[in-house]
C-alpha cells in the first residue's frame, strides 16, 4: 500500500497527465486496429459531457456515486483493509433508502434526510460484520465482504419481490418528499437527473480529509493501516479501528446507494447483477492514491469516460468497452509509476542525509 501512496506523492500531477495520455493512446491503437476512427471517437467522448447542460448534469450525476464508493474504499485502505464489499453496502444503502421512502411517511426534507441517513447506517451495519470477523476471528475481509455482497444482492431481490413491489418487477416511484432532486439544479441542467448527491459526495470528501488528518480517530486509522504492531504497542485498539473504519467505509458506500436511489433512480427493480459501482470505487480509490482529492479527480475522469463513452459508441460506432481498456491502462501506468524513473534520478541526488 505504501507504494502507491509514495508513487502518488512524487509528482502526482505529471504522473497522472502522462498516464492519461498514454492510456488514451492505448485506446486509440485498439480503435485503429479494429478500423475505427479514434479522433472522431475521442472528440465525441470529450465533447458530450461538456457541451449541453443536460449532459453536464448527467455527467455530474455519474460522478457523484463514484466519489462516494471511491472514498469508501479509500478510507478502508488507509486502515489497511481491502473493502471489496462496497458493492453490497451500496445495495443495502439503496434498499434501506427505498424502504424508508416508501414505507415511512414523513414530511418533505425530513423524509429524504431520514432515508439517506438510514441508508448510510445500513451500509455501516453491512460492513460491521466483516469488520467484526476480521477483528475478532481474523477472517480475511476480502472473503467476508465478497460473501456479504451476494447476501445483499439476494436480500434486496427478496424484499423487492415480496414486500416492496406491487406485482411488478420493481417498486413504485418514491414519493416527492423523499426525493433529493432539487428543482433549481434540475432546471439549470435541462431536466437531467442531477441531484444533491454531488454535494454530499463533496462533503464526504471533506469529512474524510478532516477525519483522517485532523482527528485522533484518523490518526489511529492511519497508524493502524501503516503499522498495526506499533499501533498496538502504543496502546491503540487495532480491533476498534478495524471495525470503525469498516463501518465508516460502509456508510459511505451506503450513502452512495441511498443518494442514487433517492436522486437518480427513484425506484428499485429486481437486480439482475451487481451494477459495479462498488468495484469501480476500488479503481477510483486506487487511482486517486486513497486521498480525498485524488478520489474526486479520479471519479471525475472515470465519470467523464463512462458518460462520454455512451456517445462515443453512438457517434463513432466504437464499442463502449474500449473505455474500460483505457481506464485499465491508466491505472496500470500510474501504478507502475511510469514517470517515476525520471523523477527517481533527480531524487537520488537529493537523498536525505541526516547525520554525517
Amino acid at each position, binding site marked *: 500500500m505504501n507504494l502507491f501512496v509514495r508513487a502518488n506523492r512524487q509528482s502526482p500531477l505529471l504522473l497522472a497527465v502522462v498516464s492519461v495520455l498514454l492510456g488514451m493512446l492505448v485506446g486509440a491503437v485498439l480503435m485503429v486496429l479494429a478500423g475505427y476512427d479514434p479522433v472522431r471517437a475521442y472528440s465525441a467522448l470529450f465533447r458530450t459531457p461538456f457541451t449541453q447542460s443536460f449532459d453536464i448534469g448527467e455527467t455530474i450525476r455519474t460522478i457523484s456515486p463514484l466519489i462516494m464508493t471511491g472514498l469508501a474504499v479509500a478510507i478502508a485502505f488507509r486502515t489497511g483493509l481491502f473493502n471489496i464489499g462496497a458493492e453490497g453496502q451500496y445495495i443495502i444503502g439503496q434498499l434501506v433508502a427505498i424502504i424508508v421512502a416508501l414505507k415511512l411517511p414523513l414530511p418533505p426534507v425530513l423524509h429524504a434526510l431520514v432515508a439517506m441517513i438510514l441508508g448510510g447506517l445500513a451500509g455501516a451495519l453491512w460492513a460491521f460484520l466483516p469488520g467484526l470477523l476480521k477483528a475478532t476471528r481474523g477472517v480475511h475481509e476480502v472473503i467476508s465482504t465478497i460473501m456479504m455482497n451476494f447476501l445483499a444482492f439476494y436480500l434486496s431481490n427478496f424484499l423487492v*419481490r415480496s414486500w416492496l413491489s406491487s406485482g*411488478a*418487477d420493481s417498486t413504485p416511484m418514491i414519493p416527492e418528499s423523499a426525493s433529493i432532486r432539487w428543482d433549481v439544479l434540475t432546471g439549470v441542467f435541462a431536466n437531467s437527473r442531477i441531484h444533491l448527491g454531488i454535494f454530499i459526495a463533496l462533503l464526504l470528501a471533506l469529512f474524510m480529509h478532516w477525519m483522517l488528518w485532523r482527528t485522533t480517530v484518523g490518526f489511529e486509522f492511519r497508524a493502524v493501516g501503516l503499522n498495526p504492531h506499533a499501533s498496538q504497542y502504543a496502546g491503540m485498539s487495532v480491533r476498534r479501528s478495524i471495525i470503525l473504519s469498516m463501518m465508516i467505509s460502509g456508510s459511505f458506500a451506503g450513502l452512495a446507494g441511498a443518494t442514487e436511489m433517492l436522486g437518480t433512480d427513484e425506484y428499485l427493480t429486481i437486480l*439482475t*447483477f451487481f*451494477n*459495479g459501482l462498488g468495484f469501480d470505487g476500488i479503481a477510483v480509490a486506487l487511482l486517486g492514491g486513497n486521498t480525498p482529492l485524488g478520489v474526486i479527480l479520479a471519479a471525475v475522469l472515470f465519470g467523464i469516460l463512462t458518460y462520454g463513452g455512451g456517445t462515443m459508441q453512438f457517434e463513432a*460506432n466504437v*464499442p463502449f468497452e474500449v473505455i474500460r481498456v483505457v481506464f485499465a491502462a491508466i491505472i496500470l501506468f500510474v501504478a507502475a509509476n511510469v514517470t517515476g524513473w525520471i523523477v527517481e534520478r533527480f531524487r537520488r541526488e537529493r537523498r536525505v542525509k541526516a547525520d554525517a
Partner: protein
Amino acid sequence: GSGQQEQGGQQGADQEAFSAGMVTDTGGVNDESFNQTAWEGMKRLQKELGVNVKYLESKRDADYVPNLSHFAREGRDIIWGIGFKFENVIPQVAKQFGDAKFGIVDSNLGGNIPPNVVAVTFKEHEGSFLMGVIAGLMTKTDKVGFIGGISSPLIKKFEVGFRAGVQAANPDAEVKVAYAESFDDVAKGRSLAQNMYNSGVDVIYHAAGGVGKGLFNEVKTREKGKYWAIGVDMDQSSLAPDHTLSSMIKRVDVAVFEVTKQAKENQFPGGKEVELGLKDNGVGIAETTSKHVPEDVLKKVEEFKQKIIKGEIKVPSTEEELKSFK
C-alpha cells in the same frame, strides 16, 4: 464493422424519413432474447417501410434516461424502451419530451400511461400454458420441470401459466419448479437441469435467460427422444435441435413493428396498453415444434389455443389465480 453502420442515417433524422429509436436494457441488443427480437422488428421496419432506425445499448440502469433523452433530442418520431426495467423512467422522459412518442415493452406502467406512450405487454402465461400442454402430453414419467431465472412477478407468470397447462393436459403430472436466482449463471442452469432429469423429469421449460443455456447444453448430451427442453422468448431449437420440443415465442418484433407502423400512419395508440396474447399473435408456438411433437399432440395444443382465444379458458397468471383454476 459494427451493427450500426448498416442502418445508414448517422445524424438525427427529423426531416424526410420517419425515424425510430430503440434503447435496450442491460442485456444488450444481441441478447438472443427480447432485445434482439425487438431489433428484428426494427430492421423489418427499415426494410419494408423505409423507417430510419437506430439502437442504443444501456450499460447500467442509470443509462436509460440519458439514452432515451438522446433519441428524443435527436427528434426521433418514436422511441422504444425494451424491457420492464424502463417502467419508471419512460413516464419521466415522456413528460419531459411531450412531443415525442414512446413505447415500452413488457410493462403496463401500473395503468398510468401518459398520452404519448404506448405500453406493450404480453400474455406470457397464455403461451406458457401451451408449453405446459405440450410438456404434460409428452412426458413419459409424469414429471416435468420449470427453471426460472430471478424470482419476479414477470417470471412467475411463465411458471404459473406452464403449471396450469400441464395440469389441464395431464392432471397426473407433477411440476418441479426451481429458480436459479440469476439470469447469467449457466452452471446453475446446468446443475438444475441435470438434477431434474436425474430425478425423473423428462421435459423442462425455462424462463431464465442465459441460465437456460445450461438446460440446452445438458439436454444435448442426453438420450435422444427421451429428454426434452422447451425454450423461451424466441425459437431456441437451434441450441439443441434434437432435444427441443418447442419454444414459447414472444413476438416483440411484431409488437414493435405494428405499433411503429401505426405511429407512422398517425394511428399511434397513445395512452393505451396493448396487451398481446395468443389471439393477437403476440405470443405463440415456435414453428419447429412439429419436428418432434406428434400430430395428435399438436392438435390438442391447437384445441387449447382456440379455447384460450375464444375466452373459454382463462389462463391464470398468479399463484392465487392458479389455485382457483379449474
